[in-house]
């Protein structure tokens, strides 16, 4: 508590009277909840997502820089390995200096789940759940659910094959049905419950196909294998750990 008050004092003293938090804290759009069938569900069961507000853009290097300046324990030399591995903010020049080739408006990557979660939490926000993220990711420029459109899927898959999109600035891809930019086309994004993905037949040996071996057997399976793009996202989520800081994995925050 003392710490909080101390922080509060710093916030007030540092002249941030007209701004709450970082650049885009006000820059979110309302997402109207709904029901859909995600790629992985229980026997093609439906998932219902409640209303929430989502950041229009992924968090940028510039915004993350403000965050680590304020919360020193998330600086590269201060962060502990339990929460972020050796690739954390790899391309930065120093604790509070971006690398030469990094635009401050490019999406921040090489950040861990723990650091992303803390960033959102410090703004009174949170990371989206997989169900929330996949819900908005169904949208093309004009349609809420464009998963059946071959051009939409082709666009996403083409991006997955193109390297180095992460150096582009946020807002450089299309604006979707909800008004969100860069859901597809720039970076992959962390989700709060990424570690809820158990893919049958995955290489990790504790994940066994025998349904008897799991509490709540038959929990997972591809309900729409045609959706190869989503399959790749789930595969990534199933294989990363929370302290991994990956080159093409960024994040954005949501709020209830």
């Amino acid at each position, binding site marked *: 508590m003392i710490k*909080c008050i101390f922080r509060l004092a710093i916030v007030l003293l540092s002249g941030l009277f007209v701004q709450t938090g970082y650049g885009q804290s006000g820059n979110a759009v309302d997402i109207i909840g709904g029901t859909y069938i995600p790629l992985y569900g229980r026997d093609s069961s439906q998932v219902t997502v409640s209303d929430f507000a989502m950041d229009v853009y992924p968090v940028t290097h510039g915004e993350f820089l403000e965050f680590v300046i304020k919360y020193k324990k998330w600086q590269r030399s201060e962060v502990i390995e*339990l929460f972020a591995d050796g690739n954390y903010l790899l391309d930065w020049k120093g604790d509070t200096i971006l690398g030469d080739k990094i635009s401050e408006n490019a999406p921040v990557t090489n950040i861990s789940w723990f650091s992303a979660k803390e960033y959102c939490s*410090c703004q009174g926000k949170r990371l989206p759940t997989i169900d929330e993220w996949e819900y908005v990711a169904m949208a093309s420029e004009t349609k809420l659910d464009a998963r059946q459109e071959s051009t939409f899927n082709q666009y996403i898959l083409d991006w997955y094959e193109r390297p180095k999109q992460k150096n582009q600035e946020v807002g450089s891809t299309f604006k979707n049905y909800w008004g969100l930019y860069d859901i597809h086309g720039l970076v992959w994004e962390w989700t709060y419950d990424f570690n809820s993905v158990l893919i049958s037949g995955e290489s990790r040996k504790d*994940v*066994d196909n025998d349904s008897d071996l*799991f*509490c709540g057997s038959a929990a997972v399976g591809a309900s729409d294998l045609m959706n190869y793009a989503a399959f790749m996202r789930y595969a990534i989520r*199933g294989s990363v750990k*929370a302290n991994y800081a990956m080159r093409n994995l960024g994040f954005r925050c949501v709020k209830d």
Partner: protein
Amino acid sequence: MKKLLLSIATLVLFACSTSELGDSAIDSEKGISSPEEISELSIYNLPSTWTSQDNDQIVLKELNGKVLVMVMIYTSCKAACPRLVADMRRIKDQIPPELLSDIQMILVSIDPETDTPERLKSFAIENHMNEEPWLFLRGSMESVRDFANVLAVKYKKISPLDFSHSNIISVFNEKGELAHQQEGLGVDNKETIAKIIELATTLQ
């Protein structure tokens, strides 16, 4: 203006208080803990508070100095968890009794909503685990998610009463650093037991 200040204040306080990765254990600048004692990879960096089956409040760091054997389960589970619990009991039975005082066998619930301390207590009694070295822990939804992520344990709520989850038993050394993980059900416990004995022997 005053209103704005107030809203900033609320926001900042909110941000601080909701953060499970708070400042206590990992804030070196304040010197609340001695960082030289805890390595970067120690689970004692997690500041969350847990509740035991006896309703005691526990911070993980209080377990410092013991070898920890941990598994994540939920008590209403009918399939894998009983087998994981059986694995834990088999492991414990093969440890020389004189070493047990340096070992804590811990079952962490992934279903804190259902697994109240009372429920954990009756589960402990039913399974003859209501005594040392057994310890049941219940956290918040968020601290459980954090903890699972540290262990690379995956879980998902798939119905009001059921979860799917990975079957991993983890061994931590006396500093809270992950020393060994056993994955799968009914697998050979030999390596796990050898590791526990090796770690606990150094503490004698």
